[in-house]
């Protein structure tokens, strides 16, 4: 991991983060938090619907707005996160929370790919999903919630190590 972190720190991004004014880190951090909160705020609503809450609201009515909002939040969080990490990347080598956070994000993204490729998701317009479909979606929602909470929890703790 250290060679990658060293490369990231010496990259143009790392250099720009360190040399573009004393408020840069704080402002980039602000946008990281906005990205994360946008992502999680949307994801938690969708995941709870997949877990079985608010069944009277059709799934497409919830997936419609939450998926693009969560995607936008993730992109903002990922771009700003790269900047925050690049600032002093090598200092995070051996930080246990980093080693929890990134695998958790990987699990969350793989989960997105798996759930959205299943018939239960692709045919969400159907008025009466089968119990099997419901189970598939509920498991996806549970994995998503657990993975994102782990990623955010570990991410918040990185600076306290």
């Amino acid at each position, binding site marked *: 991991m250290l060679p990658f972190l060293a490369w990231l720190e010496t990259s143009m991004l790392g250099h720009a983060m360190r040399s573009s004014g004393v408020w840069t*880190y704080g402002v980039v951090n602000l946008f990281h938090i906005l990205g994360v909160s946008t992502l999680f705020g949307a994801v938690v609503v969708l995941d709870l619907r997949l877990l079985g*809450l608010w069944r009277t609201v059709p799934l497409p009515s919830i997936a419609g707005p939450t998926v693009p909002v969560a995607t936008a939040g993730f992109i903002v969080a990922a771009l700003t996160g790269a900047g925050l990490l690049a600032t002093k990347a090598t200092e995070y080598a051996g930080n246990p929370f980093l080693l929890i956070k990134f695998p958790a994000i990987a699990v969350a993204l793989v989960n997105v790919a798996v759930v959205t490729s299943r018939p239960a998701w692709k045919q969400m317009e159907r008025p009466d999903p089968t119990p099997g479909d419901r189970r598939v979606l509920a498991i996806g929602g549970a994995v998503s919630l657990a993975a994102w909470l782990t990623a955010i929890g570990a991410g918040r703790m990185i600076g306290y190590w």
Partner: protein
Amino acid sequence: MQTRRSVSMALAAFVMAVLPAAAHHGWSGNSPEEFELTGTVEQPVSLAGPHATMKIRAQGQLWDLTLAPPPRTQAAGLTEKAIPVGAEVKIHGHRNSDPKRFEVKTERVTWNGKTFNVYPDRD
């Protein structure tokens, strides 16, 4: 209903897991004892976030000095060019609680009769 209960229990468990860790915020990873050290600047002040830093050599060791956040460190006059490499400085702060780590959360840096106080509200 069962789903709702398990979700709220998971959320409660998460909050409880995070709260004690948040107690480490700030200075609790460092010794409460006041700590002073005299050494020579090996790496000048860096105003990169999240905390400004510099390195000094003292007692045959290279010490990492963690200063205040960049805007606050700059406001105290401690900028990249404030103290040259090789200058002898006296620092005051709190050493990392881990005796194997040569890191000081630094409140004041004195050089050439001038004191840069990045945490004026602390002893």
